[in-house]
């Protein structure tokens, strides 16, 4: 599979509403081809056996191939986590613990749960969020606590969640400033952390708080330009798929992000309803927004069962409860 080097970024962003003129041009977002191939081959070989992804053994974390210093990491990636009819928060916990173990600098914008919730689950997965926060590896924005501060007390300096005090839908610029400030590389000379990562859980909450879908897409675009291209980091965002609830704003947001992301992990509930042994289905879709798709995007589907400290994946219909 030959690949033409130096392909520019076409910037295919599908969104309704007016396109705002962005000043910067985004350069080539080359994805580590070797990493991609290695990853897909590894998964094809192991697709039949059951294995634990989120266990505390970092040697088996498949994304390590993609982002290890060995492979060519010349650009960041946007991973979109999506959940429909089920709870996809286990993916957020996984990525948080994964990046902390990989020694990355993480900025976590946690809008839906409190710090202690992530901290307790992180301990089960083998990372300590409090230690990471003390070391400076983790910058945690606790949305719930900050919202209470913003709404009940007037803040002097601009607060990341300043839009809660405004009557009409503003923009997310203060939040973007916060992210940029958090992930800006320290000029001390020594590289303590490998690369920066931005984690957002979750974006649909911003729509509930009065932001328009376009404002949220702009925010993501700004973050991507800074984090993915300028700082060569990664981004992981969670969006809920409302399904048949006819949430137009959410659909706009989801479609827009799907076209920009390199990897889409979609956790769905089973079509037949609740099952005790199979909690849902995970669809993995690799995309290459950097070039027109000359070949089909790769996609895998696995069913999963969440356990206390890990998640076990198996091919469809191969649940141990059924076999």
């Amino acid at each position, binding site marked *: 599979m030959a690949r033409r080097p130096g392909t520019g970024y076409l910037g295919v962003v599908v969104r309704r509403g007016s396109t705002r003129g962005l000043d910067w041009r985004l350069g080539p977002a080359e994805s580590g081809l070797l990493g991609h191939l290695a990853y897909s081959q590894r998964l094809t070989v192991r697709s039949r056996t059951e294995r634990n992804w989120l266990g505390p053994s970092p040697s088996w974390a498949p994304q390590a191939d993609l982002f290890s210093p060995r492979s060519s990491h010349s650009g960041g990636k946007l991973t979109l986590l999506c959940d429909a009819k089920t*709870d996809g928060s286990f993916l957020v916990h996984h990525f948080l613990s994964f990046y902390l173990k990989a020694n990355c600098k993480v900025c976590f914008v946690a809008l*839906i749960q409190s710090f*202690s919730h992530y901290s307790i689950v992180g301990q089960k997965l083998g990372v300590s969020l409090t230690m990471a926060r003390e070391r400076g590896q983790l910058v945690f924005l606790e949305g719930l606590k900050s919202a209470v501060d913003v709404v009940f007390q007037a803040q002097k300096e601009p607060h990341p969640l300043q839009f809660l*005090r405004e009557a009409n839908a503003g923009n997310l610029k203060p939040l973007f400033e916060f992210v940029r400030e958090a992930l800006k590389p320290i000029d001390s000379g020594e590289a303590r952390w490998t690369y920066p990562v931005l984690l957002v859980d979750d974006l649909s909450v911003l729509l*509930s*708080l*009065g932001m328009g879908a376009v404002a949220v897409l702009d925010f993501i675009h700004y973050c991507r330009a800074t984090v993915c291209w300028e700082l060569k980091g990664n981004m992981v965002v969670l969006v*809920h798929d409302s399904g048949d609830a006819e*949430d137009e704003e959410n659909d706009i947001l989801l479609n827009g992000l799907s076209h920009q992301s390199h990897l889409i992990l979609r956790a769905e509930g089973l079509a037949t*309803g609740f099952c005790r042994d199979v909690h849902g289905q995970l669809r993995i879709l690799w995309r290459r927004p950097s070039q027109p798709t000359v070949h089909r995007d790769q996609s895998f589907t696995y069913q999963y069962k969440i356990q206390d400290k890990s998640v076990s994946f198996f091919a469809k219909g191969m649940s141990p409860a059924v076999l």
Partner: protein
Amino acid sequence: MAAAATCGSVAASTGSAVATASKNNVTSFQRRGRRASGTNDSGPRLVSITGTRPSVRNGQLLVSTGLPALDQLLGGGLAVGTVLLIEEDKYNIYSPLLFKYFLAEGIVNGHTLLVASAKEDPANILQELPAPLLDDKCKKEFDEDVYNHKTPESNIKMKIAWRYQLLPKMEQIGPVSSSRFGHYYDASKRMPQELIEASNWHGFFLPEKISSTLKVEPCSLTPGYTKLLQFIQNIIYEEGFDGSNPQKKQRNILRIGIQNLGSPLWGDDICCAENGGNSHSLTKFLYVLRGLLRTSLSACIITMPTHLIQNKAIIARVTTLSDIVVGLESFIGSERETNPLYKDYHGLIHIRQIPRLNNLICDESDVKDLAFKLKRKLFTIEWVQDNYLRQERNIYPPGFSYLLKQKDSAWGEGSLQHSTFLMSFLAKATAFASRLVRHSEPLKQNGSGRIRQAAGPRLWHDGRRQEAPGLLGIPP
């Protein structure tokens, strides 16, 4: 008073996931009852709070919702710091009951109450709370209720839908002493006045507060919601439920009850118009409320008329922002009222969402078809399983009715004892198909007349055909 008895089942310290007691902790308050850090000697030992117990899964602090059956379905109870959203039934008959059970549980346990309503004065709501059923008083009446419930059909094993037999039955526990976690209430009696007066409660009645001069922060919420948030935050801070007030050392739970949130009486128009001007007001309110609850020792119940909300997207967002969502669907006025399956019940109860707190998984119960009924005194939730037996008889065509005979053998008097199941099934299949062909004369209809008799098992009696089915038509 009953509140003085401490809950015996609360362990002194749960070993799970103690917060790493870092010295840089800003608040001394550790959410969710994870015990105060042992290394911090100056902090007081966390005393077990009345009416709470730790969850078996992750040591989280739980309070009872007032209905032990509902507690069981929610994985033990309502977690402290979370919101229980009740989607009201169509005519708002049963959701106030659940609301009152929650508040009554608070009074019996000695918790502080905060009742907010735009329709009724909170003092009147408290006057109408059900009386608790304590130990010996009403045990006899409860027993006779349970006895009437036992029907002879409950012991019959099912032949076709046999998998349903394996599912667990809802337990019926009688009233017990007041130190237990969940209590039973008598819906026909009122809470004794002295209990109400001895309790500590705060009321928020919107028509009174809307004209008062409470300082309102600029926010895009409707004024009713803003005032309510201010009020709640005030109480939490003043009475020390969030641990930030150095004067107050509060070791009690605040139970917040908000009635009919989202209805036009609160000044919100989501029930009136599809794309009103305040479409984000309710979700913002829920978000800030969630923030307040997560940092304090409180639990909240909200009843919301979701069937009136015009925009379905708002319901989805509200569900995401709440922790536990329970929907009530009553049979009054619907076509299910005459359905024999639901004859004994007053409505269905749907557990739409259970949160995953401090954990990757949650305790979701396997039982999904739940119905509730309000008996003379008790509100019970049961699985609609016992009626599947009746349903079995109705869903199969008349040709197979003899399959479901309960008394003697299923195939009639010994006619098919020697054949295997498959043979008999095939025989019956042909008999069933034969009803499509006109016989020489129709079969004699003896029986109750409810089910039409078709060619029965006497097909292969004595190894020869007794009655020829229409497939091999005997020429007349």
